[in-house]
């Protein structure tokens, strides 16, 4: 099982701050995972419609969209950061 966590407007659109899911086999990269998210219903389709802008962290480290997701226990999805 993998914990998925959401922040800012990704969280609002998905409608939850986290969930624990069984990822389907065949998802290799972050990009695969983002494409899968789009298929999970209306709210996910909305949250991930512009998946190129979504940032992803694997176990609390920034990961590019071509990074492999194997082994990650916690995967976070969020918009570009606006702190500071």
């Amino acid at each position, binding site marked *: 099982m993998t914990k998925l966590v959401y922040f800012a407007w990704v969280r609002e659109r998905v409608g939850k701050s986290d969930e624990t899911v069984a990822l389907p086999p065949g998802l290799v990269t972050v990009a695969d995972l983002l494409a899968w998210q789009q298929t999970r219903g209306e709210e996910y389709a909305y949250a991930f419609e512009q998946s190129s802008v979504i940032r992803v962290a694997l176990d609390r*480290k920034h990961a590019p969209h071509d990074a492999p997701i194997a082994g990650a226990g916690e995967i976070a999805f969020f918009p570009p950061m606006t*702190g500071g």
Partner: protein
Amino acid sequence: MPASSRPPCTIRIQSEPFDIPAETARLTAGRTDIGGIVTFAGLCRDEGGRLKALELEHYPGMAEEEIARVAESALARWPLMGLTAIHRHGLIKPGEDIVLVIAASAHRRAAFEAADFMMDYLKTRAPFWKREHLLDGSTGGWVEAKAEDDAAAARW
């Protein structure tokens, strides 16, 4: 302090305000080898009176770790004698502090560059998101990331 020892490095994520003189004193106490200290304080603006507050959401597990990674880069890159980064979360009112970076070094150039670098990287890598709360009581939108911040970080 021998040059090889690790300089004091403080990273904190907190909702309460921070105390800049106390944080500075923590870096300088008992030392006589520091020549320059650059302090950056980032404050909440009211955006021409439009804003009641900024709400800062963060990724509690990752925020401290990511800022620590940025700080490690700064410590590796400049001969610092101390480095502090504190970022607040939660509701912050106009005029209040949001973020603090303090860089101390023997010479001013390293302190200026490290503080500047820290802010550019905090802006673009630390998992914080700002949302506006407007004076009319409504919740405004999420603040959009600026291309100029990415460009600033790309300088380093």
